[in-house]
């Protein structure tokens, strides 16, 4: 099963094993990871599932769609080149493991 590691601003880590096809947002919300809200349930309508993806995983990520790009302009913590919406990135065969940093602010 793919693994997702969420790193909090204080350095603490949570490693989750989840089924193929699970998005970072859904994994975080169902497992009580602090700092990921996922207000719109994954429709790229709220930007409260913002994460920073560690650079070594960047090449395995899906392209940023126009909708995601637009919503990334509305994150509360500053957008960087590492920013993604957690609801638009799913783990699976092409992304077996990923490490992300959770921003300090989400709303």
């Amino acid at each position, binding site marked *: 099963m793919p693994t997702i590691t969420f790193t*909090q*601003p204080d350095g603490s880590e949570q490693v989750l094993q989840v089924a193929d096809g699970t998005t970072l947002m859904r994994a975080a*919300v*169902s497992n*009580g*990871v*602090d*700092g*990921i*809200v996922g*207000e*719109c*349930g*994954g*429709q*790229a*309508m*709220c930007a*409260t599932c913002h994460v920073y993806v560690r650079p070594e995983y960047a090449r395995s990520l899906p392209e940023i769609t126009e*909708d995601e790009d*637009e*919503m*990334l*302009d*509305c*994150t*509360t*913590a*500053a*957008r*960087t*080149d590492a920013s993604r919406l957690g609801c638009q990135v799913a783990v699976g065969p092409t992304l077996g493991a990923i490490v992300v940093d*959770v*921003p*300090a*602010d*989400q*709303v």
Partner: protein
Amino acid sequence: MSSSTAKCPYSGTQAAGTAAAVPVPQPLRSPGGVSEAPVAHWLDVEGLAADPYAAYARLRAESPVAWVPKLNKFLVTSYGGCHGIEQDQETFSANVSGSTMNRAIGAQPMLRKDDPEHAIDRAPINPVLRPKSIKEAWAPVFARNAETYLDALEDKGPGHADLNTDYAAPLASKNLIDLLGLLDADVDQVRRWSHDFIAGMGNVLDDPGIWARCDASTADADALLAELIPFYRKNPDASLVSALANSGLPVEDVAANTKLAISGGLNEPQHMVTNMVWALSRHPAQREAVLADPALWAAAFDETVRWQSPIGMYPRQATRDTVLEGVAIPAGAGIGVVVASANRDQSWFGPGAEDFDIHRPKRPHLAFGAGVHLCAGHWAAKSAIGQIAVPKAYERFGSLRVDEQRAESWGGWVFRGLSSLPVTWN
């Protein structure tokens, strides 16, 4: 590092970073003892419309998941309970049986469907209602409309002006007509439709007069849509009806979802205009702060919608036997998700949860719902009301305030707001 948050129409408006990450509310199902639901016999349902907040506080303290015989429903009043419901649409369905909403608008709108059916209706309207489209296509329209109705308010003068009747109501209607693309519809007509649909949705006692008015408005709106749908198929634009007309959805779904937006997109923005001015009038120091620093308008909007939530309660139905916050809920049970109460839950917002405080640490609230039914119009409302209608009113009348000489009037709990708010200025 390309920090580009500045492009968002609503950025620069958040209170400066609060240190801690947002904690997640307690898990939904308590592993321990399951108990029968407490029954809130004491709850005076008729009395809620005058002011529900004391009753909500007692429910949260004594029985945050309570059976209310008079409503034939469970009422869920804690933040954790309401949030948990929104995270699990398989157990808590929006497709409630005997839905007066479906009867009122003649078909099943997205708000009464669960995914995946819900997503098919919802996907086409999201692009219209994301921040970029709101900012580029609609904010200039919202600004022009605000100026028009500020002129009307000014004509009434500081001794007679009513912020609801003279500004909030016609402005909310005109903004909605434009955003939806209801060409040629007039402000009073759409207000009447909205009112009649909402009355139908609340017509649990089957009053034939209410159904007659609702059916007449449905027929009027359907007649307009019968012209608009082919028109927008030939002449697409940035409006919501255009997006629905070109989505490939059957006409009946286009019409149902348009009527849903007419029902849900008018009263709440209208109430937010008056609620914000009412709240700021009662908190002069916060009013001074926001007038001195316009970046605080976003916080003022957000705090008002939390503190005086225009939608107080919405329905769900259990699809299976379940346990919510330790209380057994049987399959088929009706549930009222009382977000207006959740939004004042001290265990989530801290000891000052009952206070209006635009400087409070930011926390997610439930005034727009949460999960897949999260209000489709939430960016539109933040822009039209929080960034435009209310700031412009204070630009025009720097000393705008509630007129203590004349009576205001609040009402409702499922939907709550001011039906009259006399205002004055120097």
